[in-house]
């Protein structure tokens, strides 16, 4: 995957907006990893992570920098409640670009909806099941899902459609599945008809869902276990369940290349907002 070029912005700040957790510190590790990766490239004057559940909070973000231009990229997997309601409300944003008490905020789309996520998912799927022929494999992209917001599954459905179209060695099937709405990930063995099954969680972090809840729903674990850093679920691939070889990946958001997806969203923002 070759990231789109982005011009250095030595007078601008980048805010990476994440959810965070009051219970599991592992859930915010990817955000800091993405920030560190971008910081090392010297593209912005400052790179900060801001959070809903941790510090610094979205509401404190304005005070973090002297920069007068700030790009905000939601490090979220889908459009929905947080990206459309919470972040704009907390940052006092009125649209794509908002001047808040003298500072200009550019609000980009969340990482999960960017087309470059497709290549990231493919790479992750191949890495987790090395030497396994995709033509004999079902690839399942699993998300949370909620009956409350139709947008929460849109990004996954779109990515699955793109994964089915990709012209490289195609997977026998690409399926979207969810924790809390149909098709349920717990029914994976009924949905998958192949000998091999690769499951990639469409989450930013290895938090409670990807490391604790989904392994139970898949049958890898018998009960919800400890936090991510204390477990070794991913080191035991493949899991032999229901007569299949099940390969379970860590959350897609933990990929180092997610930093490029953040930059891709900024590139797209600039491209679509350049005065003609």
């Amino acid at each position, binding site marked *: 995957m070759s990231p789109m070029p982005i011009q250095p912005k030595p007078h601008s700040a980048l805010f990476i907006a994440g959810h965070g957790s*009051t*219970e599991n*510190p592992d859930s915010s590790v990817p955000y800091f990893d993405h920030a560190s990766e971008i910081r090392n490239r010297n593209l912005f004057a400052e790179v*900060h992570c801001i959070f809903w559940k941790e*510090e610094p909070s979205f509401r404190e973000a304005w005070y973090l920098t002297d920069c007068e231009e700030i790009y905000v990229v939601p490090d979220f997997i889908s459009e929905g409640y947080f990206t459309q309601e919470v972040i704009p409300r907390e940052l006092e944003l009125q649209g794509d670009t908002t001047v808040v008490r003298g500072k200009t905020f550019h609000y980009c789309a969340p990482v999960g909806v960017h087309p470059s996520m497709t290549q990231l998912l493919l790479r992750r799927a191949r890495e987790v099941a090395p030497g396994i022929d995709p033509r004999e494999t079902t690839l399942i992209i699993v998300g949370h899902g909620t009956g409350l917001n139709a947008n929460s599954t849109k990004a996954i459905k779109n990515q699955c459609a793109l994964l089915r179209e990709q012209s490289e060695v195609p997977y026998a099937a690409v399926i979207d599945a969810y924790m809390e709405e149909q098709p349920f990930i717990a029914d994976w063995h009924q949905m998958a008809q192949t000998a091999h099954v690769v499951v990639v969680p469409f989450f930013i972090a290895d938090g409670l869902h990807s490391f604790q809840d989904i392994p139970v729903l898949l049958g890898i674990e018998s009960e919800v276990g400890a936090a991510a850093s204390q477990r070794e679920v991913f080191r035991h691939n493949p899991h032999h369940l229901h007569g299949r070889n099940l390969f379970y990946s860590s959350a897609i958001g933990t990929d180092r290349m997610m930093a490029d997806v953040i930059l891709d969203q900024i590139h797209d923002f600039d491209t679509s907002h350049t005065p003609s």
Partner: protein
Amino acid sequence: MTLLQWLEHLLSQGFHRIGQIEILHGASRPAGAVDHFCVLCHEDDRETVVAALGQPEDFMIVADPQQARDISTYSEANEYRFTKGQLNLRRQWVMHLASIEELLAAIEGFYPASFGLWVAQQRGTLQVENLRVKLGRQTGMYRFAGSISDAGAQQLVQDVCGPAHQCAKKILWQLDQDTPLDDSDASRFDGIGSGLTEPNAIPLLCREACNHFVAECRKISKREFEQKSTA
């Protein structure tokens, strides 16, 4: 002045403490660390660090300001410090920093947004948000938090805030424009706590109730509703 210029000015005035972090800078640097811009350590480790010339044998010695987050994630008792103002920062580490930029980055790692909030207060640009306004803009499952009674909220401040509980920040907000917080250890806390005063130390500021407090408001308001229903 920029944030960095504020920090430079503050250091020249004798600033050396924020939260539980001791900043050994200028003449106070340990003899073995004079090549560094400054050395950071836990306030209770200051004497040990100075005596060991900045390199105590059994201490973790780091030089990357981004490691401030790693050091401050868990307490000595392995508890997750999801609010960074807690008074349980682990000890036995030393951070050698090469520049004032690294110092600002380290402060932000240990106490996110703390320096920017303090500078905003000095500039007169800090916007304090009272609890009722904060609760009034909650949506989703937290909308119900706004139903908490004044008495419930006042009690919650004493049960959740302040150095005796989860947080050692100086509370700037009130319940609403006309209702200050009841006098208590929590509402009275100065955000410094070590007996030092500005500019030797700067306070950790709480400009609005945090999300942990909002979540607790939701629990209390639910309890109040259930008690009313069964009365």
